[in-house]
C-alpha cells in the first residue's frame, strides 16, 4: 500500500533519471555494489514470479502434477466465460465503488471539520488516525464478532430495524459486513491525506475566499474542493488499489476462510483458485488480468497527476 502511495507522489520531478547530482561521484564499482541487494531481491522475488505467472497462464496444469500442456489463451477464454469469475468481477466493481465512495466521503467530512476547529485539533487528529495501525484481519475479526449471526451486537441492532441480518448465509449481508469493515479501516488514511491537503492551502487563499464568499458551504465547493482535487484524484487511485488488494485480510476473516457461496473479490479468487483449487494456469491468468488492471490504473494515475500541475 505504501508503495502505491509513494508512486502517486511522483509528480514534480518530471520523471527524470537524468537528474543525477552535478558533482556526482565517479567511482565505477561502488554504485553497482550498492545496487546489488535491491536488484537481486527484485530479480528473484519480483521479475521471476511475475514472468512465471505470465508463462503459466498459457499452460494447463496436469491435475496429478505430471507436467503441463501449452493451451494458448484457453485459460483466458475460460475466465471470460466462467460465471464464477464474472460474478467476482461484478462484485469487485460494486465493492470497490462502495468502499471508495464512503471511505473518501466520510474522511473528507471529518478532515474539513478537523481543519476548522481550533480547540482539540490535535486530539481529534490522533483519535481519527490511529486505526491505520490496526491490521485488516484484526478489523475483520472484530467484524465477525460484531456481525455474528446469533449474538453480534450490530446484528441485533440491524434486527431491531427489521433487517434479518445473516452473516455468511445471505450474499449481500456478508457483502455489507465486508464493506463496513473495509470502509472503517480506510477512513484514517484518507483523513490524513485530506487533512494535510487542507492544511497546505495558503492562508491568503482562505482569507480571500472568506471575503468573496460568505457561506461556508459555498466556500467549500468553490474554493476548497477544487484545491483538494489533486489529493482527491490521488486518493481515488489509492482507495481503488486498497479495495482491490489490501482488503484480503478483511474478506478472508469475514468468510472465515471458507468462501462457499459468499462474495469474493478478484484477488481473493486468485488465492482460492490457486491454493485451494490447484488450478495453476487459471490462477496465473487471473494474476495477469490483475496486473493489467493495475497497469491501467497507473497510467490513469499519471494522466490525472499530470493535470495536477495545472492546479497548483
Amino acid at each position, binding site marked *: 500500500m505504501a508503495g502505491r502511495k509513494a508512486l502517486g507522489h511522483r509528480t514534480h520531478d518530471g520523471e527524470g533519471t537524468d537528474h543525477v547530482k*552535478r558533482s556526482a561521484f565517479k567511482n565505477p564499482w561502488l554504485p553497482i555494489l550498492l*545496487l546489488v541487494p*535491491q536488484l537481486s*531481491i*527484485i530479480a528473484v522475488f519480483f521479475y521471476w514470479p511475475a514472468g512465471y505467472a505470465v508463462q503459466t497462464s498459457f499452460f494447463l496444469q496436469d491435475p496429478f502434477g505430471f507436467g503441463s500442456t501449452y493451451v494458448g489463451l484457453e485459460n483466458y477464454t475460460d475466465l471470460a466465460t466462467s460465471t464464477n469469475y464474472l460474478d467476482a468481477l461484478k462484485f469487485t466493481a460494486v465493492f470497490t465503488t462502495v468502499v471508495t465512495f464512503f471511505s473518501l466521503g466520510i474522511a473528507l467530512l471529518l478532515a474539513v471539520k478537523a481543519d476548522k476547529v481550533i480547540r482539540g485539533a490535535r486530539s*481529534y487528529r490522533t483519535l481519527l488516525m490511529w486505526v491505520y*495501525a490496526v491490521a485488516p484481519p484484526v478489523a475483520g475479526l472484530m467484524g*465477525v464478532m460484531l456481525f455474528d449471526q446469533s*449474538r453480534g451486537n450490530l446484528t441485533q441492532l440491524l434486527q431491531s430495524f427489521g433487517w434479518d441480518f445473516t452473516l455468511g448465509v445471505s450474499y449481500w449481508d456478508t457483502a455489507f459486513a465486508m464493506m463496513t469493515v473495509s470502509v472503517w479501516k480506510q477512513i484514517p488514511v484518507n483523513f490524513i491525506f485530506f487533512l494535510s491537503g487542507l492544511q497546505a492551502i495558503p492562508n491568503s487563499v482562505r482569507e480571500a475566499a472568506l471575503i468573496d464568499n460568505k457561506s461556508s458551504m459555498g466556500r467549500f465547493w468553490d474554493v476548497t474542493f477544487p484545491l483538494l482535487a489533486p489529493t482527491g484524484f490521488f486518493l481515488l487511485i489509492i482507495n481503488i488499489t486498497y479495495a482491490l488488494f489490501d482488503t484480503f485480510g478483511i474478506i478472508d476473516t469475514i468468510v472465515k476462510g471458507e468462501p462457499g457461496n459468499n462474495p469474493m473479490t478478484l484477488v481473493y479468487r486468485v488465492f482460492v483458485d490457486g491454493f485451494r483449487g490447484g488450478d495453476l494456469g487459471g490462477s496465473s491468468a487471473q494474476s495477469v488480468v490483475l496486473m493489467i488492471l493495475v497497469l491501467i490504473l497507473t497510467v490513469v494515475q499519471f494522466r490525472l497527476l499530470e493535470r495536477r500541475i495545472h492546479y497548483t
Partner: protein
Amino acid sequence: MTDISQTSAPAKQPVIMGRRRIRMSDVVDHAVLILGALLMLVPVYMIFASSSHDAITIHREGLQFGFGEHFAANYNAALFEYGGFTDSVNGVTMLTNSLILGLGFAIGKIIVGMMAAYAIVYFRLRFATFAFWIIFTTLLLPLEVRILPSYEAIQAMNLANTYTGLIVPLIASATATFFFRQFFRSIPEELIEAARIDGAGPVKFFIDILVPLSRTMIAAMFIIMFVFGWNQYLWPTLITTDESLFTLVRGIRQIIQAYADGSTTPEYGEAAALAIIAMTPPVLIVVFFQNWFVKGLTESDK
C-alpha cells in the same frame, strides 16, 4: 413556506444571532468530529472490554461494554498458553515473530533502499536509467497479484517456514528506495560539493553526512514500514505452516478457523485479548510518533 420563514428568522437580529450562529457551527463541527472519533474507537473499545469476560458471557450476550473479571485470565491464556495443532505456539512466540517480521522488514527495507537510492542519485552510472526503471516498475505490482508464483519461488528455494522466506520477498518492492531517492534529490547540491572539496569520499559522505541528514526520514519510513510488516497477513499465511513461526496477525486466522469449526464454544475472551495484543504495538507507535508517521506518509513527494 413555514420552513423558509423559520430559517430566515434569525437573520433579523444580526448581532446576537450572528454570534450564536458561529457557536452553533462550532458545536456541529465538534459533534461531527466526536461522532467520527467514536466510530473509530467504540468497536475497538468493545473488543477490549470483552477481553475481560469469559467465553460463555460473550457467547450468550455478544461483545460487552462493561468490564468483567477475567481480564488477567484471558491475557494470561492468550500470551502463555500453548495452542494450535502441535501445541507449539503461544502468544509470546507470536509476539516475538511479529516483532522479528516488523523489525526485519523495516530495517531491511531501509538499508536496501538507502543504498540503492544513494547509487542512483549520487553516482554517474551508464545503466542508471535502466536500473531506475527496473527498480521502480516494482511499485506497480503488489505482492498480491503475483502471490502464487512468489510462493512457488520460495518453495523451490526451500525457504518456506524460514524468516528469510517470510521477510525478503516483502522487501521486493522499491517503496523505500523511491522515498529516499526523492529525499536525496532535495538535498542541496552545495553539500556534496563542499564535502568533495574537503576530500570526503563516497563512503564517508554517505555515513557522515547523508545518514545524519536523513534521520527524520529514516524515522518516518521506519514507522510506516514497521506497521506494514507487522500487519502482513496473506504472505505469512502462505509461507508459514510451521506454527512456531506464526505471527500474531497470522494467529488471527487460527481463531477464525476455530469459529468456523463450530464444534466447541470458541474462547471469545482469549480471542479478543489476542486481537488487542496484536494491535497494541503498531497503534502505540503510530500514536506516539504521529508527527513522523504523518510526515512519512504524506510528504514523500519532496
